[in-house]
C-alpha cells in the first residue's frame, strides 16, 4: 500500500515540475525578447531593463531556469507590470470569490448527480431514457448560455436574484447552478453506469435476500461502492470547475480569478496569466493525488495488495 502511495506522490511531483518547466520552455521558445513578452502592451523608459534585471535575463539559460524553479517553489510569481503589483497579491485578493463559486458548484453537482443516479440506475427503461437524454443535453450545453437563460428567467423576469455582483448569498445562487449543471450532466453518466454495474454484483443479491429495502440497498451499499470509480473523476471535476468559473464570472459580472485572468489575457499581462494557469495546475495535481491516495485508503481490495 505504502509503495503505491509513494509512487503516486512521486509521479505528481514529476508532473508539477514538468508543468513549471513547460512554461519556462514556452516563454523562451516564443519569438521575440522575453522582456517584450512579459511587459504586455506597456511601454515606458526603463521598463525593459527592470524586467531584465528582475528575471536575470543576462545570465545563462540553465541559471535562469534554476532561478525560475526556485522562485516558483518559494511562491514568488513575479510582478504584473500592467497592474504594477506583485502577481501573488493580485491573485490572492481575487481567489476567495472564485473558490466560493467553484466549491458551491462542485457540491451542488455531486448532490445532483448522486440523487439522479440513486433514483434512476437500473430502473425502468422510461426513467433511464429521460435521465440519459437530460444528461446529454446538459453535458452539451455551453456554461455561458445556461447562465444567460437563467439570468433571463430569474433575474430579468422574476427578479428573484441580482443580475451581477458578488454581494450576499443571493448573488451566488444562479452562478453556482450555471456552473454545476453541465458538470452534473457528465458526472451522472459515470455514476449511473458504475451503479448499474454494482447492482449486478452478488453482494447486492445477498443484501436483497436479507430483506433490506431497495432504497437502503442503494444508499448504504450500492452508492458507496459506485462512488469509488467516480472518485477518479475528481481531478477532472476540479479542472472543469476552475475553467468553467472563468466563463461563469464573465456571464454574471462577478469579481474573481476569472475576471482577473480574462483582463490579463486581453492586456497581454503574461505574468498574471502564467501564475493563474500554473496555480490551477498545482491545485488540480494536488487534488487528484489526494483523491487517488484516498482511493487506495478506502478500498480494502487495494489496501490488501
Amino acid at each position, binding site marked *: 500500500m505504502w509503495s503505491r502511495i509513494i509512487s503516486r506522490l512521486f*509521479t505528481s511531483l*514529476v*508532473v*508539477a515540475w*514538468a*508543468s513549471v518547466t*513547460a512554461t519556462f520552455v*514556452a516563454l523562451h521558445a*516564443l519569438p521575440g525578447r522575453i522582456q517584450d*513578452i512579459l511587459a504586455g502592451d506597456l511601454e515606458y523608459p526603463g521598463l525593459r531593463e527592470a524586467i531584465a534585471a528582475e528575471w536575470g535575463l543576462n545570465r545563462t539559460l540553465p541559471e535562469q531556469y534554476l532561478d525560475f524553479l526556485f522562485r516558483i517553489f518559494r511562491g514568488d510569481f513575479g510582478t504584473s507590470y500592467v497592474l504594477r503589483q506583485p502577481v501573488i497579491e493580485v491573485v490572492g485578493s481575487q481567489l476567495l470569490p472564485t473558490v466560493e463559486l467553484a466549491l458551491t458548484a462542485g457540491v451542488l453537482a455531486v448532490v445532483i448527480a448522486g440523487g439522479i443516479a440513486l433514483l434512476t440506475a437500473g430502473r425502468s427503461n422510461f426513467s433511464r431514457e429521460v435521465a440519459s437524454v437530460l444528461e*446529454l*443535453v446538459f*453535458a*452539451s*450545453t*455551453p*456554461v*455561458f*448560455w445556461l447562465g*444567460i*437563460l437563467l*439570468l*433571463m428567467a430569474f433575474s*430579468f423576469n422574476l427578479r428573484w436574484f441580482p443580475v451581477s455582483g458578488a454581494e450576499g448569498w443571493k448573488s451566488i445562487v444562479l452562478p453556482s447552478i450555471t456552473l454545476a449543471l453541465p458538470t452534473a450532466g457528465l458526472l451522472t453518466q459515470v455514476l449511473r453506469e458504475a451503479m448499474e454495474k454494482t447492482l*449486478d454484483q*452478488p453482494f447486492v*443479491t445477498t443484501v436483497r435476500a436479507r430483506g433490506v429495502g431497495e432504497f437502503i440497498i442503494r444508499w448504504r451499499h450500492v452508492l458507496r461502492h459506485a462512488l469509488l470509480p467516480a472518485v477518479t473523476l475528481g481531478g477532472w471535476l476540479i*479542472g*472543469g470547475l*476552475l*475553467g*468553467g468559473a*472563468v*466563463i461563469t464570472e*464573465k*456571464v454574471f459580472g462577478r469579481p474573481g480569478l476569472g475576471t482577473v*485572468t*480574462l483582463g*490579463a*489575457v*486581453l492586456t*497581454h*499581462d*503574461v505574468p498574471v*496569466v*502564467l501564475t*493563474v*494557469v500554473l496555480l*490551477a*495546475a498545482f491545485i*488540480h*495535481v494536488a487534488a487528484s493525488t489526494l483523491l487517488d491516495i484516498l482511493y487506495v485508503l478506502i478500498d480494502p481490495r487495494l489496501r490488501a495488495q
Partner: protein
Amino acid sequence: MTAPSHRSFEQAVPLDRPEDLAGFETSLPVIAVQRRPPLAFIVSVAFVVLLIAAAAVPWLFTHFDPLVGDFTEGLKPPGWAHLFGTDRLGRDVFARTIYGTRYSLLIGFGGVAVGLGLGVILGIIAGQRNRILDECVSRLFDMLSSFPGVLLAMLIVTFLGQGMLNIAIAVGIAGIPKFGRVVRAQTQLVRDADYVTQATVYGLSQWQVFLRHVLPNVLVAIPIIATVYIGSTILIVSGLSFLGLGPQPPTPEWGVMLAESRDVLRVAWWPGVFPGLAITATVIAFSVVGNFLQKKFEGRMA
C-alpha cells in the same frame, strides 16, 4: 484460482445472451439480422448534413445579410419577416445564426485537426514497446492535462494573440492528451493483436510490420475519434469566443452573438436564445453520431 461465477436466478433464466447459447448451436439457418440504426442517430446525421450545407452555402437558407441591418428594424421579436427576430442593430438573427455555422465548424474541425495530428504522433510513439518512451510521453500527457483546458487555451491565446486560427491552435494543444491517450491505447491494442504477431512470425521486419499492419489499423480509428470529440471541441471554442478571444464582432459567430446579447437581455430574449440553441443542437448531434459509430466499430477497432 478463478472466482466462481455468481449469477442471480433472474439473470440465468432467459437464454438470450450469446454466451448463454454456447453449445446450443443447431443446424438451423442463421439469419443475420441487420439492426436498424436508432431514430436519434438518423435525425442527428440529417442535422449534421444540414449544418455542413449551412456552412458551405449559407445564402441558400436566407436572403438577409448577416452583417448589415436596418436600424429602424432593431430588436423586432421573432415573426414571419424575421424568423428569429432582429438584434439591436436590426440584423436578422436567423441569418446570423446560419452564417455562424461556418465559424463554429471551421474552428471546431481545425482544433480537432491540430489536437489529433499531434496526438496521433505522440500516441503512436507512446504505444510502442519502449517503456522509457511510453513513460516520457505519458507524463507529457499528464502534464498537459493538469492544466484546465479553458485556462491553458487562454494562456496560449495570450502568447499568440486573439483570432480564429489561434483559438483553434489553443484548443487543439489543450486537446493533445485526450487524443494522444486514445491513440496510445489503440496502438497497444493493435500491437498485441494476433495478426501482428503472425506477421512478425512470418518474418517481416519491425518496420514492415509497423508500416503495413500497425499503422493502417491505428489510422482507421481516427475518423471515429474525430467525430466523438468534435462536439466537445465546438463547446470549448464557443466558450472562448464568448470571452472575446476568438473572432471579433461583428463576425456572426455563435459565442460572439451570445456575448453581444447580454446587453439587450432586459428587453429582448431572442438574441440570447437562438445562437445557444444552435450550439447545443450541434454538440448533441455530433455526440450522438460519434457515440453510435464508436459502438458500432468497437469490436473491429483492433
